[in-house]
Protein backbone atom coordinates (compact mmCIF):
# COMPACT_ATOMS: atom_id res chain seq x y z
CA UNK A 1 0.00 0.00 0.00
CA UNK A 2 1.22 3.44 -0.81
CA UNK A 3 1.19 5.48 2.35
CA UNK A 4 0.04 8.48 0.40
CA UNK A 5 -2.85 6.57 -1.11
CA UNK A 6 -5.77 7.73 0.96
CA UNK A 7 -9.02 7.92 -0.97
CA UNK A 8 -10.88 8.77 2.21
CA UNK A 9 -9.06 12.05 2.82
CA UNK A 10 -8.84 11.09 6.46
CA UNK A 11 -5.10 11.24 6.52
CA UNK A 12 -5.09 14.84 5.40
CA UNK A 13 -7.72 15.59 8.00
CA UNK A 14 -5.71 14.00 10.77
CA UNK A 15 -2.55 15.75 9.68
CA UNK A 16 -4.33 19.09 9.79
CA UNK A 17 -5.47 18.74 13.39
CA UNK A 18 -3.73 21.14 15.75
CA UNK A 19 -1.05 19.65 17.95
CA UNK A 20 -2.01 19.27 21.61
CA UNK A 21 0.87 21.52 22.53
CA UNK A 22 3.65 21.00 25.05
CA UNK A 23 3.34 18.80 28.06
CA UNK A 24 1.53 20.74 30.81
CA UNK A 25 3.79 22.20 33.48
CA UNK A 26 2.09 20.34 36.29
CA UNK A 27 2.65 17.04 34.52
CA UNK A 28 6.27 17.94 33.84
CA UNK A 29 6.71 18.62 37.53
CA UNK A 30 4.97 15.37 38.42
CA UNK A 31 7.14 13.27 36.16
CA UNK A 32 10.32 15.04 37.20
CA UNK A 33 9.42 14.27 40.81
CA UNK A 34 8.86 10.63 39.92
CA UNK A 35 12.17 10.45 38.11
CA UNK A 36 13.89 12.12 41.05
CA UNK A 37 12.44 9.45 43.31
CA UNK A 38 13.65 6.80 40.91
CA UNK A 39 17.13 8.29 40.97
CA UNK A 40 17.05 8.35 44.76
CA UNK A 41 16.01 4.71 44.87
CA UNK A 42 18.67 3.85 42.36
CA UNK A 43 21.34 5.63 44.35
CA UNK A 44 20.14 4.00 47.56
CA UNK A 45 20.17 0.58 45.94
CA UNK A 46 23.70 1.04 44.69
CA UNK A 47 24.85 2.45 48.00
CA UNK A 48 26.11 5.52 46.23
CA UNK A 49 25.65 9.16 46.89
CA UNK A 50 23.08 11.15 45.01
CA UNK A 51 24.49 13.31 42.32
CA UNK A 52 23.51 16.96 42.38
CA UNK A 53 20.81 16.70 39.74
CA UNK A 54 18.96 14.03 41.65
CA UNK A 55 19.21 15.89 44.90
CA UNK A 56 18.13 19.15 43.37
CA UNK A 57 14.52 18.16 42.78
CA UNK A 58 12.79 20.47 45.20
CA UNK A 59 9.50 19.33 46.63
CA UNK A 60 6.35 21.06 45.46
CA UNK A 61 3.34 21.85 47.56
CA UNK A 62 1.35 18.99 46.10
CA UNK A 63 4.05 16.44 46.66
CA UNK A 64 3.81 14.01 49.51
CA UNK A 65 6.70 14.19 51.88
CA UNK A 66 8.38 11.07 53.06
CA UNK A 67 7.11 10.45 56.54
CA UNK A 68 10.08 8.25 57.25
CA UNK A 69 12.43 11.15 56.76
CA UNK A 70 10.60 14.14 58.15
CA UNK A 71 12.01 17.44 57.14
CA UNK A 72 14.00 16.13 54.25
CA UNK A 73 11.44 17.13 51.65
CA UNK A 74 11.97 13.87 49.85
CA UNK A 75 9.39 12.31 47.60
CA UNK A 76 7.90 9.09 48.84
CA UNK A 77 9.49 6.38 46.81
CA UNK A 78 6.54 4.13 46.21
CA UNK A 79 8.57 1.77 44.09
CA UNK A 80 11.08 1.23 46.86
CA UNK A 81 8.26 0.78 49.31
CA UNK A 82 6.68 -1.82 47.07
CA UNK A 83 10.02 -3.58 46.82
CA UNK A 84 10.33 -3.63 50.58
CA UNK A 85 6.83 -5.04 50.95
CA UNK A 86 7.58 -7.60 48.26
CA UNK A 87 10.78 -8.66 49.99
CA UNK A 88 8.93 -8.97 53.27
CA UNK A 89 6.32 -11.06 51.50
CA UNK A 90 8.95 -13.29 49.98
CA UNK A 91 10.58 -13.72 53.35
CA UNK A 92 7.24 -14.65 54.89
CA UNK A 93 6.56 -17.04 52.03
CA UNK A 94 9.96 -18.62 52.55
CA UNK A 95 9.13 -19.24 56.19
CA UNK A 96 5.86 -20.88 55.19
CA UNK A 97 7.64 -22.94 52.58
CA UNK A 98 10.18 -24.23 55.05
CA UNK A 99 7.38 -25.09 57.42
CA UNK A 100 5.58 -27.03 54.76
CA UNK A 101 8.63 -28.54 53.16
CA UNK A 102 9.99 -30.41 56.11
CA UNK A 103 6.89 -32.52 56.83
CA UNK A 104 6.11 -32.93 53.15
CA UNK A 105 9.55 -34.19 52.25
CA UNK A 106 9.46 -36.36 55.28
CA UNK A 107 6.22 -37.93 54.09
CA UNK A 108 7.53 -38.35 50.60
CA UNK A 109 10.66 -40.10 51.69
CA UNK A 110 8.72 -42.44 53.93
CA UNK A 111 5.98 -43.43 51.51
CA UNK A 112 5.81 -44.84 48.06
CA UNK A 113 4.78 -42.12 45.69
CA UNK A 114 3.18 -43.06 42.43
CA UNK A 115 3.38 -40.80 39.49
CA UNK A 116 -0.06 -39.59 38.50
CA UNK A 117 0.26 -39.89 34.81
CA UNK A 118 3.26 -37.84 33.94
CA UNK A 119 5.76 -39.48 31.67
CA UNK A 120 8.72 -38.19 33.54
CA UNK A 121 9.34 -38.88 37.17
CA UNK A 122 11.72 -37.09 39.49
CA UNK A 123 15.19 -38.24 38.69
CA UNK A 124 16.23 -38.77 42.23
CA UNK A 125 15.30 -38.00 45.75
CA UNK A 126 17.46 -34.96 45.40
CA UNK A 127 14.98 -33.66 42.86
CA UNK A 128 12.05 -33.71 45.25
CA UNK A 129 10.30 -30.39 45.01
CA UNK A 130 7.78 -28.41 46.93
CA UNK A 131 4.35 -29.85 46.46
CA UNK A 132 1.16 -27.92 46.90
CA UNK A 133 -0.60 -29.46 49.87
CA UNK A 134 -3.89 -29.64 48.00
CA UNK A 135 -2.46 -31.40 45.01
CA UNK A 136 -1.28 -34.90 44.43
CA UNK A 137 2.26 -35.46 43.48
CA UNK A 138 2.93 -35.84 39.81
CA UNK A 139 6.06 -36.51 37.93
CA UNK A 140 8.23 -33.50 38.09
CA UNK A 141 9.37 -33.38 34.54
CA UNK A 142 11.66 -30.51 33.94
CA UNK A 143 11.26 -30.56 30.23
CA UNK A 144 8.54 -27.94 29.85
CA UNK A 145 11.07 -25.60 28.38
CA UNK A 146 13.56 -28.13 27.27
CA UNK A 147 15.68 -27.23 30.22
CA UNK A 148 17.17 -30.67 30.39
CA UNK A 149 18.16 -31.49 33.89
CA UNK A 150 17.16 -28.18 35.35
CA UNK A 151 14.73 -28.63 38.13
CA UNK A 152 11.37 -26.99 38.57
CA UNK A 153 10.62 -25.67 42.03
CA UNK A 154 7.13 -27.06 42.07
CA UNK A 155 5.29 -29.76 40.23
CA UNK A 156 1.54 -29.95 40.42
CA UNK A 157 -1.00 -32.02 38.57
CA UNK A 158 -4.66 -32.71 39.04
CA UNK A 159 -5.68 -36.14 40.19
CA UNK A 160 -7.57 -36.83 36.98
CA UNK A 161 -4.85 -35.51 34.74
CA UNK A 162 -7.35 -33.08 33.18
CA UNK A 163 -5.24 -30.10 34.09
CA UNK A 164 -1.68 -29.48 33.10
CA UNK A 165 1.31 -30.36 35.09
CA UNK A 166 2.59 -27.03 36.32
CA UNK A 167 6.16 -26.02 36.96
CA UNK A 168 6.16 -22.94 39.10
CA UNK A 169 8.72 -20.17 39.25
CA UNK A 170 8.70 -16.71 40.73
CA UNK A 171 9.87 -13.71 38.75
CA UNK A 172 12.61 -11.68 40.34
CA UNK A 173 11.17 -8.45 38.97
CA UNK A 174 7.95 -7.15 37.53
CA UNK A 175 6.88 -7.96 34.02
CA UNK A 176 6.72 -5.18 31.46
CA UNK A 177 5.33 -5.25 27.97
CA UNK A 178 8.74 -4.78 26.50
CA UNK A 179 10.62 -7.16 28.74
CA UNK A 180 8.29 -9.79 30.11
CA UNK A 181 9.80 -12.60 28.09
CA UNK A 182 13.26 -11.72 29.36
CA UNK A 183 12.05 -11.63 32.94
CA UNK A 184 10.32 -14.99 32.53
CA UNK A 185 13.31 -16.50 30.76
CA UNK A 186 15.60 -15.34 33.53
CA UNK A 187 13.32 -16.81 36.17
CA UNK A 188 13.18 -20.12 34.38
CA UNK A 189 16.82 -20.42 33.55
CA UNK A 190 18.06 -19.11 36.86
CA UNK A 191 18.24 -20.79 40.16
CA UNK A 192 14.74 -21.91 41.07
CA UNK A 193 13.25 -20.21 44.03
CA UNK A 194 11.37 -22.69 46.13
CA UNK A 195 8.05 -21.39 47.22
CA UNK A 196 4.32 -21.52 47.08
CA UNK A 197 1.95 -18.85 45.93
CA UNK A 198 -1.59 -17.81 46.59
CA UNK A 199 -1.86 -16.85 42.96
CA UNK A 200 -4.70 -18.75 41.24
CA UNK A 201 -2.30 -19.51 38.44
CA UNK A 202 -0.05 -21.35 40.83
CA UNK A 203 -2.53 -24.21 40.81
CA UNK A 204 -3.05 -26.81 38.17
CA UNK A 205 -6.78 -26.12 37.99
CA UNK A 206 -6.23 -22.40 37.67
CA UNK A 207 -3.78 -22.84 34.83
CA UNK A 208 -6.14 -25.28 33.16
CA UNK A 209 -9.01 -22.79 33.28
CA UNK A 210 -6.81 -20.02 31.94
CA UNK A 211 -5.46 -22.11 29.09
CA UNK A 212 -8.92 -23.29 28.17
CA UNK A 213 -10.07 -19.70 27.98
CA UNK A 214 -7.12 -18.83 25.80
CA UNK A 215 -8.06 -21.60 23.44
CA UNK A 216 -5.09 -23.74 24.37
CA UNK A 217 -5.52 -27.40 25.13
CA UNK A 218 -5.53 -27.84 28.88
CA UNK A 219 -3.85 -31.20 28.61
CA UNK A 220 -0.36 -29.85 28.52
CA UNK A 221 2.60 -29.33 30.64
CA UNK A 222 3.04 -25.69 31.48
CA UNK A 223 5.75 -23.64 33.06
CA UNK A 224 4.36 -20.78 35.09
CA UNK A 225 6.30 -17.76 36.23
CA UNK A 226 4.30 -15.77 38.72
CA UNK A 227 5.07 -12.13 39.27
CA UNK A 228 3.66 -8.64 38.95
CA UNK A 229 2.60 -6.60 35.99
CA UNK A 230 1.88 -2.93 36.38
CA UNK A 231 1.15 -3.28 40.05
CA UNK A 232 -1.11 -6.29 39.77
CA UNK A 233 -0.60 -10.00 39.98
CA UNK A 234 0.31 -11.64 36.72
CA UNK A 235 1.95 -14.73 35.36
CA UNK A 236 3.72 -15.93 32.28
CA UNK A 237 2.57 -19.29 30.99
CA UNK A 238 5.07 -21.09 28.80
CA UNK A 239 4.01 -24.11 26.78
CA UNK A 240 6.39 -26.86 25.75
CA UNK A 241 6.58 -25.49 22.21
CA UNK A 242 7.82 -22.15 23.51
CA UNK A 243 4.55 -20.26 23.16
CA UNK A 244 4.29 -17.81 26.00
CA UNK A 245 1.38 -15.83 27.39
CA UNK A 246 1.53 -12.93 29.79
CA UNK A 247 -1.77 -13.07 31.66
CA UNK A 248 -3.31 -11.38 34.69
CA UNK A 249 -3.65 -13.56 37.73
CA UNK A 250 -7.43 -13.47 37.30
CA UNK A 251 -7.09 -15.34 34.01
CA UNK A 252 -9.58 -18.14 33.97
CA UNK A 253 -11.53 -16.67 36.84
CA UNK A 254 -12.74 -13.44 35.29
CA UNK A 255 -12.36 -14.33 31.64
CA UNK A 256 -9.25 -15.27 29.80
CA UNK A 257 -7.28 -12.77 27.87
CA UNK A 258 -3.60 -12.47 27.33
CA UNK A 259 -1.95 -9.16 28.04
CA UNK A 260 0.67 -10.13 25.49
CA UNK A 261 1.86 -13.22 23.74
CA UNK A 262 5.27 -14.21 22.51
CA UNK A 263 7.78 -16.97 22.45
CA UNK A 264 10.34 -18.13 24.90
CA UNK A 265 12.56 -20.49 23.00
CA UNK A 266 13.06 -23.87 24.61
Amino acid sequence: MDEADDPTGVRALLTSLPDPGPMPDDLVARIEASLAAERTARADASGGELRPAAAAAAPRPDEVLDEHRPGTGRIVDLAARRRRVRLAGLAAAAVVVVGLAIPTISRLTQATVTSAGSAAAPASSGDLKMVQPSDQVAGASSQALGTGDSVAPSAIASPEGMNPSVHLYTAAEGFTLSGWTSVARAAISGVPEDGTSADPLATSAGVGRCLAGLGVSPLQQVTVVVGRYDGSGAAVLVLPDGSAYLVPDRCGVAGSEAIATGRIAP
Partner: protein
Amino acid sequence: MTADGRSDAELMAAHVAGDAEAFGELFRRHRDRMWAVALRTVGDRDLAADCVQDAFVTAFRRAETFRGDASVSTWLHRVVVNTCLDRLRRRRPTDELPAADPAAPGDSFATAQVRLDVEAALAQLPDTQRAALVLVDMYAVPVAEAATILQVAEGTVKSRCSRGRDALAQLLGLPGRVPGRDPLSDRGDHAPVGNHPDRRNVSSTNPQTSSSNERRS
Protein backbone atom coordinates in the same frame (compact mmCIF):
# COMPACT_ATOMS: atom_id res chain seq x y z
CA MET B 1 19.44 23.09 20.73
CA THR B 2 19.70 21.68 24.18
CA ALA B 3 22.36 22.48 26.70
CA ASP B 4 23.56 18.89 26.68
CA GLY B 5 25.28 18.18 23.40
CA ARG B 6 25.23 14.43 23.77
CA SER B 7 23.12 12.32 21.42
CA ASP B 8 20.10 10.44 22.68
CA ALA B 9 22.00 7.17 22.47
CA GLU B 10 24.89 8.64 24.41
CA LEU B 11 22.52 9.91 27.05
CA MET B 12 20.88 6.52 27.33
CA ALA B 13 24.24 4.82 27.74
CA ALA B 14 25.24 7.39 30.32
CA HIS B 15 22.03 6.81 32.24
CA VAL B 16 22.61 3.08 32.28
CA ALA B 17 26.13 3.76 33.52
CA GLY B 18 24.76 5.78 36.42
CA ASP B 19 24.77 9.35 35.18
CA ALA B 20 22.02 11.03 37.19
CA GLU B 21 21.67 13.87 34.72
CA ALA B 22 21.25 11.87 31.54
CA PHE B 23 17.69 10.65 31.73
CA GLY B 24 16.42 14.06 32.74
CA GLU B 25 17.81 15.44 29.51
CA LEU B 26 16.12 12.67 27.54
CA PHE B 27 12.87 13.53 29.28
CA ARG B 28 13.24 17.19 28.38
CA ARG B 29 13.91 16.36 24.77
CA HIS B 30 11.05 13.95 24.24
CA ARG B 31 8.37 14.89 26.73
CA ASP B 32 6.26 17.06 24.44
CA ARG B 33 6.14 14.50 21.66
CA MET B 34 5.40 11.66 24.04
CA TRP B 35 2.67 13.69 25.68
CA ALA B 36 1.09 14.40 22.31
CA VAL B 37 1.23 10.78 21.23
CA ALA B 38 -0.20 9.57 24.53
CA LEU B 39 -2.98 12.13 24.46
CA ARG B 40 -3.91 11.29 20.89
CA THR B 41 -3.78 7.58 21.60
CA VAL B 42 -5.96 7.50 24.70
CA GLY B 43 -8.02 10.64 24.04
CA ASP B 44 -8.17 11.66 27.65
CA ARG B 45 -5.86 14.12 29.38
CA ASP B 46 -5.85 12.50 32.79
CA LEU B 47 -5.30 9.04 31.40
CA ALA B 48 -2.66 10.32 29.02
CA ALA B 49 -0.87 12.00 31.92
CA ASP B 50 -0.83 8.75 33.86
CA CYS B 51 0.33 6.84 30.82
CA VAL B 52 3.17 9.14 29.95
CA GLN B 53 4.31 9.27 33.55
CA ASP B 54 4.30 5.49 33.82
CA ALA B 55 6.06 5.24 30.52
CA PHE B 56 8.91 7.53 31.48
CA VAL B 57 9.34 5.75 34.80
CA THR B 58 9.34 2.43 32.98
CA ALA B 59 11.88 3.75 30.50
CA PHE B 60 14.05 4.97 33.36
CA ARG B 61 13.99 1.58 35.02
CA ARG B 62 14.31 -0.49 31.88
CA ALA B 63 16.89 1.56 30.06
CA GLU B 64 19.32 -1.33 30.14
CA THR B 65 17.02 -3.24 27.83
CA PHE B 66 17.57 -0.64 25.13
CA ARG B 67 19.90 -2.35 22.71
CA GLY B 68 20.29 0.39 20.18
CA ASP B 69 18.59 -1.53 17.38
CA ALA B 70 16.25 1.40 16.94
CA SER B 71 16.57 5.02 17.91
CA VAL B 72 15.93 6.14 21.45
CA SER B 73 12.94 8.07 20.16
CA THR B 74 11.46 4.93 18.63
CA TRP B 75 12.08 3.01 21.81
CA LEU B 76 10.40 5.70 23.90
CA HIS B 77 7.47 5.76 21.50
CA ARG B 78 7.15 2.02 21.96
CA VAL B 79 7.12 2.31 25.73
CA VAL B 80 4.56 5.10 25.65
CA VAL B 81 2.25 3.47 23.14
CA ASN B 82 2.42 0.11 24.88
CA THR B 83 1.61 1.77 28.17
CA CYS B 84 -1.34 3.53 26.59
CA LEU B 85 -2.67 0.39 24.97
CA ASP B 86 -2.27 -1.53 28.18
CA ARG B 87 -4.16 1.10 30.14
CA LEU B 88 -6.91 1.16 27.56
CA ARG B 89 -7.14 -2.61 27.61
CA ARG B 90 -7.54 -2.68 31.34
CA ARG B 91 -10.07 0.11 31.45
CA ARG B 92 -13.18 -1.17 33.14
CA PRO B 93 -16.13 -1.92 30.88
CA THR B 94 -18.25 0.59 32.74
CA ASP B 95 -15.85 3.43 32.02
CA GLU B 96 -17.36 6.10 29.89
CA LEU B 97 -15.69 7.60 26.94
CA PRO B 98 -13.50 10.48 27.99
CA ALA B 99 -15.04 13.87 27.80
CA ALA B 100 -13.68 15.92 24.94
CA ASP B 101 -11.66 18.98 25.73
CA PRO B 102 -13.95 21.69 24.40
CA ALA B 103 -11.29 24.06 23.26
CA ALA B 104 -7.61 24.11 22.63
CA PRO B 105 -5.42 27.16 22.19
CA GLY B 106 -5.66 28.48 18.69
CA ASP B 107 -8.87 26.70 17.81
CA SER B 108 -11.34 28.68 15.81
CA PHE B 109 -14.96 27.60 16.19
CA ALA B 110 -14.89 25.64 12.96
CA THR B 111 -11.53 24.10 13.72
CA ALA B 112 -12.68 23.18 17.19
CA GLN B 113 -15.80 21.54 15.81
CA VAL B 114 -13.83 19.48 13.32
CA ARG B 115 -11.34 18.55 15.98
CA LEU B 116 -14.07 17.45 18.35
CA ASP B 117 -15.76 15.43 15.64
CA VAL B 118 -12.54 13.72 14.67
CA GLU B 119 -11.55 13.06 18.26
CA ALA B 120 -14.96 11.59 18.98
CA ALA B 121 -14.66 9.37 15.93
CA LEU B 122 -11.11 8.39 16.83
CA ALA B 123 -12.31 7.35 20.27
CA GLN B 124 -14.58 4.79 18.66
CA LEU B 125 -11.82 3.04 16.78
CA PRO B 126 -10.19 -0.09 18.12
CA ASP B 127 -7.21 1.00 20.17
CA THR B 128 -4.67 -0.59 17.88
CA GLN B 129 -6.08 1.14 14.81
CA ARG B 130 -6.08 4.45 16.61
CA ALA B 131 -2.48 3.99 17.72
CA ALA B 132 -1.40 3.26 14.17
CA LEU B 133 -3.23 6.29 12.82
CA VAL B 134 -1.80 8.55 15.50
CA LEU B 135 1.73 7.53 14.61
CA VAL B 136 1.50 7.32 10.85
CA ASP B 137 -1.07 9.93 9.94
CA MET B 138 -0.89 12.45 12.72
CA TYR B 139 2.82 12.39 13.39
CA ALA B 140 4.13 11.17 10.06
CA VAL B 141 6.05 8.29 11.58
CA PRO B 142 7.22 6.02 8.74
CA VAL B 143 5.37 2.73 8.54
CA ALA B 144 8.53 0.74 9.25
CA GLU B 145 9.21 2.73 12.38
CA ALA B 146 5.58 2.50 13.44
CA ALA B 147 5.83 -1.26 13.03
CA THR B 148 8.82 -1.27 15.34
CA ILE B 149 7.00 0.87 17.86
CA LEU B 150 3.87 -1.23 17.77
CA GLN B 151 5.84 -4.46 17.53
CA VAL B 152 3.87 -5.75 14.58
CA ALA B 153 4.61 -6.33 10.92
CA GLU B 154 4.63 -3.39 8.52
CA GLY B 155 1.71 -4.95 6.71
CA THR B 156 -0.25 -4.93 9.93
CA VAL B 157 0.41 -1.23 10.39
CA LYS B 158 -0.72 -0.53 6.84
CA SER B 159 -3.81 -2.64 7.34
CA ARG B 160 -4.68 -0.90 10.56
CA CYS B 161 -4.18 2.51 9.03
CA SER B 162 -6.29 1.62 6.05
CA ARG B 163 -9.08 0.21 8.15
CA GLY B 164 -8.83 3.07 10.60
CA ARG B 165 -9.12 5.66 7.83
CA ASP B 166 -12.04 3.77 6.40
CA ALA B 167 -13.73 3.68 9.78
CA LEU B 168 -13.15 7.37 10.38
CA ALA B 169 -14.49 8.19 6.95
CA GLN B 170 -17.57 6.19 7.74
CA LEU B 171 -18.04 7.75 11.15
CA LEU B 172 -17.47 11.26 9.84
CA GLY B 173 -19.62 10.75 6.79
CA LEU B 174 -16.77 11.27 4.37
CA PRO B 175 -16.79 9.69 0.93
CA GLY B 176 -14.23 7.21 -0.27
CA ARG B 177 -14.43 4.33 2.11
CA VAL B 178 -13.82 0.92 0.66
CA PRO B 179 -17.15 -0.84 0.15
CA GLY B 180 -17.83 -4.28 1.52
CA ARG B 181 -15.40 -4.10 4.38
CA ASP B 182 -16.10 -3.64 8.05
CA PRO B 183 -13.50 -1.06 8.94
CA LEU B 184 -14.07 -1.43 12.65
CA SER B 185 -12.89 -4.98 12.59
CA ASP B 186 -9.35 -5.82 13.47
CA ARG B 187 -9.68 -9.24 11.94
CA GLY B 188 -7.16 -10.21 9.40
CA ASP B 189 -4.12 -8.45 10.67
CA HIS B 190 -3.15 -10.86 13.37
CA ALA B 191 -3.87 -14.27 14.75
CA PRO B 192 -6.55 -14.35 17.41
CA VAL B 193 -5.70 -15.52 20.88
CA GLY B 194 -8.29 -16.86 23.22
CA ASN B 195 -11.83 -15.67 23.56
CA HIS B 196 -11.10 -12.02 23.89
CA PRO B 197 -13.56 -9.93 21.91
CA ASP B 198 -11.96 -8.50 18.84
CA ARG B 199 -14.75 -6.29 17.67
CA ARG B 200 -16.10 -3.09 19.06
CA ASN B 201 -19.60 -1.82 19.04
CA VAL B 202 -19.34 1.69 17.69
CA SER B 203 -22.55 2.74 19.35
CA SER B 204 -21.36 1.65 22.73
CA THR B 205 -19.87 3.82 25.38
CA ASN B 206 -17.96 0.79 26.40
CA PRO B 207 -14.73 0.88 24.50
CA GLN B 208 -12.99 -2.42 24.28
CA THR B 209 -9.84 -3.47 22.63
CA SER B 210 -8.51 -6.28 20.61
CA SER B 211 -4.93 -5.40 21.17
CA SER B 212 -4.34 -8.26 23.52
CA ASN B 213 -4.74 -10.55 20.58
CA GLU B 214 -1.39 -9.65 19.25
CA ARG B 215 1.95 -11.21 19.22
CA ARG B 216 4.06 -8.59 20.81
CA SER B 217 7.46 -9.97 21.34
